[in-house]
């Protein structure tokens, strides 16, 4: 919309001069200008775009006492005066861009206009990356002011690498801003990520409730939001290719997630790891006091010489060890301890490793299989993300909300490390991966010890962009997150903020008025910082076209925990709809639970054509305990003898 009439005029005084980066202008009392509005100053030979950062109003009243006198000391008479005092609406604006850029001069004293679509693009330097055949613009929302609804784009090169990368969102909980924004932005990226930049997928960690559990379920969109989608050139649609991973509960049969409705089981699968998966990230499960050179050396020994290998030590036992599972590892440790005990004095060191070190490592590793039962199995079964087979525009959601914090760290560390390794070797299946982590303050706190996860997040934020590994993170309080992690986020979004948080030093550069706007921002609005924008801008984004967590659990209520037969049947039905609970019940009747689960996971892993037949084969032959004669023999009575010592 063209704005041909000026809305204001630049003024400069000795106390409030125009500078190359800031200027002041006044407007009529009724004006569409407000905090965050983009304006244009037009002077001969120079155009300046700016964004309103502060606003002032005052009248010609010299002192409040004069108002008291004018009203005869009666507050009821204030406002009944026949004439309104002359008053000014004065705005401070920060310069977004000057044309020409050189020589850089103070903003001229000239008329001020509201920005139009083209002005917004120019002011935010979007003209440099949204034009041409190889546009890298990713819609983030619409800038709204004075009846304008201009799309605002982020530069994919600066959002997803290689120039800069990462995105961080801050905002108070409960206003659905953080999760909604990430869902919308991911969708926007998937729809507009430029072809010449390759393929992209996302891995999201669901850390609380049902937040991210219904990304594949569409929702109703209001007409206003639909128009906004149109304006941004996007289609309001759910994620077409979403897969969900959740560990089991301790029973090993029911998934530890709120996404347990049967209608959603097709793309919901268990996340199960074995010893190998854990051992590679043993650092995660060891606390700070545990980490020493001796423990490291022994873990290395286990990883390199024992686990997954044939380990032969005749002093421990005659036949070689084949350690594949936690159960095997426990047997291996038992053999060492038995051997050392048998040695007696002098039996404190085994193969240069002190017995105490071996015991410590054994305790920690055994502990993980107990604390993370459901994620880590004793028996070596594994069901993991589709490593090397990630799909373009695929979303992989890992629900770790119900896991013990130690297990959450383990999942997080292993998944991100594997993503990194595979991206490094270009064998993941996609060129870029966005990793979304909510509650970043928990994983990379500003204070607290240096944990493995924290170091890994720092590494990801500092070097991930070169690999195509991009961190999207969110938290309530940015000040509580390690500065280097959020500082590396090229793009920062701010939703409704807490005033206490805004009072922390990290927000010192934001004007008081902008802080008030941030503290009162409605749902669906964000303040955006991006490398191309010299000042933060406010945008409105439509609600994501997917069910929110709350809507999702209402429409797809989580199932109550099922007995083993029903849980198995339901999981197998995700492979073959014809399988009935009754058939499974008959089939597994009398079987050991471990055998049933082993067969279930083998079937899930193989995804055979004939699910029932494969599952039955995996169960193996039924072994019934019975007497050879088929008849119970009576126990012979104890022969009575005289007791020679009886009194």
């Amino acid at each position: 919309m063209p704005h041909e009439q000026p809305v204001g005029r630049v003024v400069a005084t000795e106390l409030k001069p125009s500078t190359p980066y800031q200027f002041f202008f006044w407007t009529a009392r009724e004006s569409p200008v407000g905090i965050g509005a983009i304006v244009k100053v037009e002077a001969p030979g120079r155009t300046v775009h700016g964004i309103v950062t502060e606003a002032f109003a005052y009248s010609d009243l010299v002192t409040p006492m004069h108002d008291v006198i004018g009203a005869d000391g009666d507050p009821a008479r204030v406002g009944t005066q026949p004439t309104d005092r002359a008053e000014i609406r004065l705005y401070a604006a920060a310069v977004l861009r000057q044309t020409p850029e050189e020589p850089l001069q103070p903003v001229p004293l000239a008329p001020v206009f509201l920005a139009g679509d083209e002005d917004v693009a120019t002011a935010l330097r979007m003209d440099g990356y949204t034009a041409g055949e190889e546009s890298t613009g990713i819609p983030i929302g619409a800038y709204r002011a004075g009846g304008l609804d201009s799309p605002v784009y982020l530069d994919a090169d600066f959002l997803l690498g290689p120039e800069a990368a990462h995105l961080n969102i801050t905002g108070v909980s409960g206003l659905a801003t953080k999760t909604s924004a990430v869902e919308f932005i991911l969708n926007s990226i998937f729809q507009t990520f430029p072809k010449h930049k390759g393929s992209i997928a996302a891995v999201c960690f669901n850390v609380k409730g049902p937040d991210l559990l219904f990304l594949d379920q569409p929702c109703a969109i209001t007409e206003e939001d639909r128009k906004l989608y149109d304006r941004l050139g996007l289609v309001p649609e759910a994620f077409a290719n979403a897969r969900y991973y959740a560990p089991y509960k301790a029973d090993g049969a029911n998934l530890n997630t709120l996404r347990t409705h049967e209608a959603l089981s097709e793309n919901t699968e268990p996340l199960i790891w074995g010893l190998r998966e854990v051992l590679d990230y043993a650092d995660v499960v060891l606390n700070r006091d545990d980490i020493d050179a001796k423990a490291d050396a022994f873990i290395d020994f286990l990883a390199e010489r024992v686990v997954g290998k044939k380990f032969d030590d005749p002093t421990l036992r005659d036949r070689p060890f084949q350690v594949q599972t936690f159960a095997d590892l426990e047997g291996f440790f038992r053999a060492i301890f038995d051997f050392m005990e048998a040695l007696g004095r002098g039996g404190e060191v085994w193969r240069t490793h002190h017995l105490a070190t071996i015991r410590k490592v054994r305790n920690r590793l055994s502990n993980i299989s107990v604390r993370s039962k459901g994620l880590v199995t004793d028996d070596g079964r594994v069901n993991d993300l589709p490593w090397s087979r990630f799909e373009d525009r695929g979303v992989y959601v890992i629900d770790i909300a119900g896991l013990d914090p130690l297990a959450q760290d383990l999942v997080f560390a292993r998944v991100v490390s594997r993503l990194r390794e595979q991206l490094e070797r270009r064998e993941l299946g996609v060129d870029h991966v966005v990793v979304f982590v909510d509650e970043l303050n928990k994983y990379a706190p500003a204070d607290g010890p240096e944990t493995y996860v924290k170091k890994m997040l720092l590494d990801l934020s500092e070097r991930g962009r070169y690999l195509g590994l991009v961190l999207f993170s969110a938290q309530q309080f940015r000040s509580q997150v390690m500065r280097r992690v959020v500082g590396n986020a090229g793009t920062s979004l701010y939703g409704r903020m807490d005033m206490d948080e805004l009072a922390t030093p990290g927000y010192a550069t934001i004007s008081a008025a902008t802080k008030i706007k941030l503290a009162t921002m409605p749902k669906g609005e964000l303040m955006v910082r991006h490398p191309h924008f010299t000042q933060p801008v406010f945008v409105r984004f439509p609600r994501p076209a997917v069910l929110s967590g709350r809507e999702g659990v209402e429409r797809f209520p989580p199932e109550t925990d099922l007995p083993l037969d029903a849980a198995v049947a339901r999981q197998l039905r995700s492979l073959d709809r014809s399988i009935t609970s009754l058939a499974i019940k008959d089939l597994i009747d009398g079987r050991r639970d471990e055998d049933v689960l082993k067969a279930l996971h083998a079937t899930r892993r193989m995804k055979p054509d004939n699910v029932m037949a494969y599952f039955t084969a995996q169960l193996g032959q039924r072994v019934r305990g019975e007497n050879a004669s088929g008849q119970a023999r009576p126990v012979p009575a104890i022969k009575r003898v005289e007791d020679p010592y009886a009194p």
Partner: protein
Amino acid sequence: MNAQALHRIRALVVAKGLTAASWIPEASEGRMEEASIRPARLEEDPGLMVHDVGDAEPWPAAVAFLDGIQRYDIVAHHGVAPLVIATIAAAVRERRDRQLRTVAQGFRRLAVGRPVVLAAAGDALEGLHQIPLDDQEPIHPLRDLTAVRRAVDRERGRLEIEVGAQYQRNDGDWLLVDGSLTASPSWANDPWTIGIVKSHSILPFEGADLERYLQMPCGSRSSVFAPAPSQVAPVFSWALRLWPWEGHDVFFGLIRIEAAPTRRTVEAADQISRWLLAERAPLSTPDARWDRLLYGFRAVEMFLKTG
């Protein structure tokens, strides 16, 4: 006139052989009046009385405020005779829905001096309205300045009348003029035009009447009277105390109101006074004349001075 323009004129006249000067005479922005008593004729009451006008009431319709400003600078001397450059301006700001908007305005630049001075400056004064002073008397720089001030006063009065005439009012809309109506018969005879006089250099009574006149309490008015004829048009007038004078001086908060010389004015004096009492707020501070200067007039002055 801004400093740059004055500097330019100064440079031009110096080039014509005049001697540059830079002086803003005292009271260059105000009108002059000599203190005197000119007895008035009462048009109401057998003797001068003080009337309580009642509570303030808001003006029932749109009201416009007319005011003007003047300013002059001595830019050069021809011999010892001054050359003065003056700026006069006037405007009408109309109040509707409590908001003031400028609806008429005029502006003029004057070059004032003896004919010989103006001739010497020649085309350096191009574009300025030239006002020659009477050169019957020998040159006296201070007396010449008094003559300059009178000439500028006259020109400002004329401009105000012109600007007032530009303002075409709807029936029932009032025009308040800052100053006397006697300079213009069209104002003086218009029942919708009211003059507000802040200056009391010329007093209408003496003796006990003057004491009563100057000691009126707040919210009261004098009887309506006809001031002694001095200018072009006769008017009716009365004084109104806007603020208590006790603790200040006898003129504090005292304004004199002028209106058309008709019976209707006498009948409406209380009503108009009540409306004017309502105009005490907002205060015209920080202007030193805030006790008598209505906010609407101050707004016009501000507009003219900053526009």
